[in-house]
């Protein structure tokens, strides 16, 4: 009877939030990766929001107080990163580009999450012919080069022309269509798995309605992996946006600043040894994608008990594990504990997955 009143306590509410929870959980290299990723991502978001304040010029500004900037000016003086072939300030366009990228990520990811989660949940839960059709369609779309699909979509949406906000929206919606199958697949797979879990079957035996089961039991458990896909897709969204821009489906320089477009314009510069027009926008893409990917990969590792690193212990450390002859049975089933050592199956649901 001694152990009943000393359960393994839940960590505080703050520590259970996504990201912060993982930050606590991580060790060594994994923590380093996660922290580096978080720092870069935060910098990116801040730059995007504060672009009007930090950028020395506007994204479509061609002349300053001292007259026209001039084309392909090398870095230095008034233009820290030089100017482009079109006569824009490279630094300003790089900073403003963050805003475009963030906007596209947010719109694209939000739209595809809603559509993908809804379709995946319904399809996975009810099964039947609708499920089969959706799976075949989504598999077909998923296997197809996402960039090509985004091109087709942007032709459809904007006729391949890019005007003001429409260009940004077109890019975002094109990317959405590409991502819906990804969310669909993940949520559907999770739904199918959760559907056969004992707690859902138990709800069915109790006579809970389908809607109640879907909302109360399946949805919340199925969306636990979303932060992970969210980060991995964000980086892909940036790459797709840049790819579209590079192929001339991005946004005109007068509408917004877009890194891929600037790189496209820099192709010919490279042959003549002008490096600054391509290097800085390119580095911006690499840095942001890397930051977000670092966060995503760390979350992925932490969610998978096989990939997660653990702290090393000193000899003789730790309490002896409880066994189950105490009334009420063993308390070793909390997070961590001896799971996996006594050849018990590891249940990621035991507080180990992203929550």
């Amino acid at each position, binding site marked *: 009877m001694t152990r009943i009143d000393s359960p393994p306590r839940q960590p505080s509410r703050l520590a259970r939030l996504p990201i912060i929870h993982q930050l606590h959980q991580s060790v*060594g*290299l994994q923590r380093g*990766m996660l922290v580096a990723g978080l720092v870069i991502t935060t910098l990116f978001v801040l730059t995007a929001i504060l672009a009007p304040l930090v950028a020395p010029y506007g994204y479509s500004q061609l002349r300053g107080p001292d007259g026209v900037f001039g084309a392909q000016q090398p870095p230095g003086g008034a233009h820290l990163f030089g100017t482009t072939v079109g006569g824009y300030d490279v630094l300003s366009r790089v900073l403003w580009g963050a805003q475009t990228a963030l906007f596209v990520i947010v719109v694209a990811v939000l739209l595809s999450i809603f559509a993908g989660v809804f379709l995946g949940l319904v399809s996975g839960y009810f099964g039947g012919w609708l499920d089969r059709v959706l*799976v*075949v*369609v989504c*598999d*077909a*779309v*998923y*296997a*197809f*080069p*996402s*960039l*090509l699909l985004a*091109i*087709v*979509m942007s*032709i*459809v949406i904007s*006729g*391949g022309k890019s005007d003001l906000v429409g260009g940004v929206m077109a890019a975002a919606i094109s990317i959405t269509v590409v991502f819906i199958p990804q969310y669909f*697949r993940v949520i559907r797979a999770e739904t199918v798995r959760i559907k056969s879990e004992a707690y859902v079957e138990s709800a069915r035996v109790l006579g809970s309605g389908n809607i109640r089961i879907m909302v109360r039991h399946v949805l919340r458990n199925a969306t636990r992996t979303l932060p992970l896909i969210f980060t991995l897709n964000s*980086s892909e969204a940036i*790459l797709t946006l*840049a*790819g579209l821009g*590079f*192929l*001339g*489906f991005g946004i005109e320089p007068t509408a917004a600043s877009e890194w*891929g477009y600037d*790189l*496209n314009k*820099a*192709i010919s510069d*490279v*042959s*003549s*040894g002008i*490096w600054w027009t*391509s*290097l800085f926008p*390119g580095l911006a*893409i*690499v840095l942001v*994608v*890397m930051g977000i*990917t*670092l966060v995503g*990969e760390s979350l992925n590792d932490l969610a998978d008990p*096989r*990939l997660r*690193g653990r702290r090393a212990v000193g000899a003789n450390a730790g309490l002896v594990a409880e066994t189950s002859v105490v009334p009420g049975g063993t308390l070793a089933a909390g997070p961590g504990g001896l799971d996996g050592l006594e050849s018990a199956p590891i249940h990621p649901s035991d507080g180990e997955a992203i929550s």
Partner: protein
Amino acid sequence: MTTVATTPAAPAAGRAPTTTAPKKKGSGGGIIRYIVIRFLLIFPTIFILVSMVFWLMRTTGDPITAALGGRLSADQLAERVAAAGYDRPILVQYVEYLGQIFTGNFGTTISTNRPVSEVLLTYGAATAELAFYALLVAFIVGIPLGMVAAYWRDKSPDASLRIFAILCYATPVFFSGLLFKLIFAVWLKVLPVAGRASTSSELQMQLLPGKTGLYTIDAIQTGNPAVLVDVLTHAVLPALALGLLTAGVFLRLVRTNVIGTLGTDYVDAARSRGVSEFRLVQKHAYRPALIPIITVIGLQIALLLGGAVLTETTFEWKGLGFMLSEFLQARDFVAVQGIVALLAVIVALSNFIVDIIAALIDPRVRY
């Protein structure tokens, strides 16, 4: 295609009785059956993609107006639209289009007035060659390094390799392409800037009677080593740019899967028999990990093709991707539609082949 790909393993893990007598050998019909069913699944995939592209592209209007909209008068435009049959009901055009695709007719380009299938044949070889070299780079770099990273898991070699993989993945091919050009072609001047071969080499290869369009093979046919060297040096940078992108994905994939299988009981069992740690990674963990790896590699073909469009544009590598972006600039949507449809067929076919390879490697399917 993953849902399809997982089916081979399903009979082993499914709701089958476990106490029955040993399964009979020679239920070899399983694999043939699987191949047939998997083959039949290609058709809905192609059908869905082709239909999707058709309906999406046509919601914006007919391709002639899109391509020549500003340049012709309304009457001339209407005449050309009628001549091409674009004024008929869209459903009729759709059925006709499906029929044409089935017979290998992908339409006629508007900007150059050539059959799309001819464009595909002319430029397809270049893309195939690029994809081959890129895959070569990806395999050579990605798979061994992935195993190294798994072996040194959470140690410094693993850390640097993972950063390398993320860097590969995070760098858009056109940016790495531009950087490579800047460093190796412009500054160091050791490799050519762009193109598939220098003009003189191309001339020599043009004269060949049995030219294949695959420059490496054509160059060997000329018997002139200088031409071969020229062709190969042109391929280095594009192949590296595209290959490293894919290599990053492969590295990560191999690492994760090998680490996953290293934690299984059978690896522990082999260890308890005194098998060396190196052999555990190289044989016991790698082979079973290969099955999911191959399946995902199939999906990377899509990434590779998407990347090929960007790489070809960066390096003026005159393949399908380069042409695609040319046609896009020209707003020639018949050509775009044709190329996209062809790529859909290629993707479906290559996924089929990859799934079959994965199934053949898995003894649970073979027997």
